[in-house]
């Protein structure tokens, strides 16, 4: 059975003077224990809002959340604030993009870890401290004993992110949500953090939802990848299939537009035209249609549904042909 099952999650923002804005528009996916799944997409496609909705961290006013978020047998959306607070940290841990602003600047790292240990696992005093030290060590922070007494600003970006991971792991959550955990970091530090996450998943069987805009990160880390566009999942597949044979024109275009370190030089990139500003609402067709090179008449008349062909989920009327998809050279 799936550990987390997100069904038709919908988040609509209301702001005075503007139209209601569906930031997440019926997202469906599930995570098995020990599995790593990726949510990829461009800025503003609703990745963070999805994770915040799962965690129940969206503001109560101004946002309407509908759908189902089943964590084992409980629908997280139906829990009271108190029950949710208890779940957060204990069952589900979260790592954010900016480690500095997610740590409390005036409390030493050690206290921030032991606090969680005390609240969720009832550890106190010496036991909590020893456990905290072990946690910091496990995420690769050298000299953990001394680091416990230090404040967030005394740590480097990579160390802060490690500390944040340690806090998220403090209660041995069964699910970890990482929202762009390496975007603010340098590539060499990113490699360290990704290696750490990978080791975690393999070592402890924690399920991981990896949110990122970087296709490269996903390629090396995730078992299954969900590509988001304008609040909807447009393609879901096993990573080998998704990267080897992208069928959705957006996925295909994305892969063609990122320069690869190992590709031959001199070829222009196969760019996707336009920007997300050109999107049309999903209600009047496929949001991607204005930018899509495969668009047909149907695309602006009907909303494509997410369909399962046994190998992948795909939301497209006129997907990229498999043989074209296989070869990256063909411009989108």
């Amino acid at each position: 059975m799936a550990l987390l099952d997100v069904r038709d999650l919908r988040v609509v923002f209301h702001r005075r003077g503007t139209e209601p804005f569906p930031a997440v528009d019926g997202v469906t996916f599930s995570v098995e224990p020990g599995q790593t799944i990726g949510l990829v997409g461009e800025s503003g496609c609703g990745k963070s809002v999805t994770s915040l909705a799962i965690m129940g961290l969206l503001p109560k006013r101004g946002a309407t959340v509908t759908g189902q978020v089943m964590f084992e047998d409980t629908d997280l959306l139906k829990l009271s604030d108190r029950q949710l607070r208890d779940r957060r940290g204990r069952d589900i841990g979260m790592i954010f993009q900016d480690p500095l602003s997610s740590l409390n600047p005036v409390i030493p790292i050690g206290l921030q870890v032991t606090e969680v240990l005390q609240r969720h696992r009832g550890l106190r005093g010496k036991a909590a401290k020893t456990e905290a030290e072990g946690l910091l060590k496990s995420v690769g922070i050298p000299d953990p004993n001394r680091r416990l007494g230090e404040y967030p600003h005394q740590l480097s970006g990579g160390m802060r992110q490690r500390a944040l991971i340690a806090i998220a792991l403090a209660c041995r959550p069964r699910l970890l949500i990482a929202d762009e955990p390496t975007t603010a970091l340098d590539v060499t530090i990113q490699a360290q953090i990704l290696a750490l996450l990978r080791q975690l998943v393999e070592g402890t069987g924690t399920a991981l939802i990896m949110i990122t805009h970087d296709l490269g990160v996903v390629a090396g880390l995730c078992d299954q990848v969900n590509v988001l566009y304008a609040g909807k999942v447009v393609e879901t597949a096993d990573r080998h299939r998704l990267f080897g044979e992208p069928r959705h024109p957006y996925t295909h275009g994305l892969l063609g537009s990122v320069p690869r370190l190992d590709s031959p030089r001199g070829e222009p990139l196969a760019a996707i035209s336009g920007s997300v500003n050109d999107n049309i609402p999903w209600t009047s067709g496929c949001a991607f249609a204005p930018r899509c090179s495969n668009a047909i008449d149907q695309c602006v008349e009907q909303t494509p549904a997410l369909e399962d062909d046994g190998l992948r989920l795909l939301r497209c009327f006129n997907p990229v042909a498999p043989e074209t998809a296989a070869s990256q050279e063909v411009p989108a």
Partner: protein
Amino acid sequence: MSTRTRDKIDALAKTSADSGGTSLAVDALKRLSRNPVAITGAVIVTLFLLLAIFAPLIAPKDPYVRYLIDEIRQGTPLGGRPGFPLGTDQEGRDLLSRLIVASRQSLIVGVMATLIGLAVGMVMGTLSGALGGWTDTILMRFTDVLLSIPSLLLAISIAALAAKPGQWTVIVAVSIVSIPIFARLLRGSMLAQRGSDHVLAARALGVKERTIVFRHMLPNSLSPVIVLATLTLATSILEAAALSFLGLGDQDPNRAEWGAMLGEASQRYFDVRPEMALWPGLAIVLVALGFTLLGESLREALDPKNRR
């Protein structure tokens, strides 16, 4: 893809937004017009302005004529009666008319004091922010000194220094209080602009330093100053009233002024006619509130974070 599809997409894309060419100011104005707080402030301020401008026409009686001087005994003001809805003051003059005419006084003092403060403060702030170095250090030390004295105390001392207190001493005193605030604020936002990317970009383009200051740094530093000016109008009116209340304002017994009226009413006639103090007090508070509401909503509207 067929042309029909293209057209349909174009049409759909159009509905989202094709405003085009709205500057930040227009944008801010649009946002202001949707904000109920801003509208409340604007209504109060507009009413006040109209009242002040057309005061002689609106006032039912001549505010300077002692109509009922004969009925006044022992200098006790009279209560409301036909023709004198709010009664009279101790000289038998119509209170309502005096209240209305007094709005002019507040407007003149408030606007003049703010304008002077704004003008001098902006010159100092611009010099400081644009030149830096010694100019900056000297000017800012000077403002520090002014800022370190509580504003009302400063105004009182300046007003008290004047040989013959009058309308102008009040204006000068109140404006000197606001000079350092404007100067500091402008300098601060100029410095922030100096380090900003678009100023660097202009420099990289080879734009002359003077042009950079007047075309890029200054205009982009103005929005907090505009907000402050609106808020200063409110405090200036309050401070001017306070000075008059303390007897440091215009000494002409004929002149109607809210602060002075409030002072007299509350100090001498509060036991007999407490409502006499209520009216000028209410007027001061209402006007100050109007400008404050307008200022605060301006601040909100001009904040780039609130732009869509």
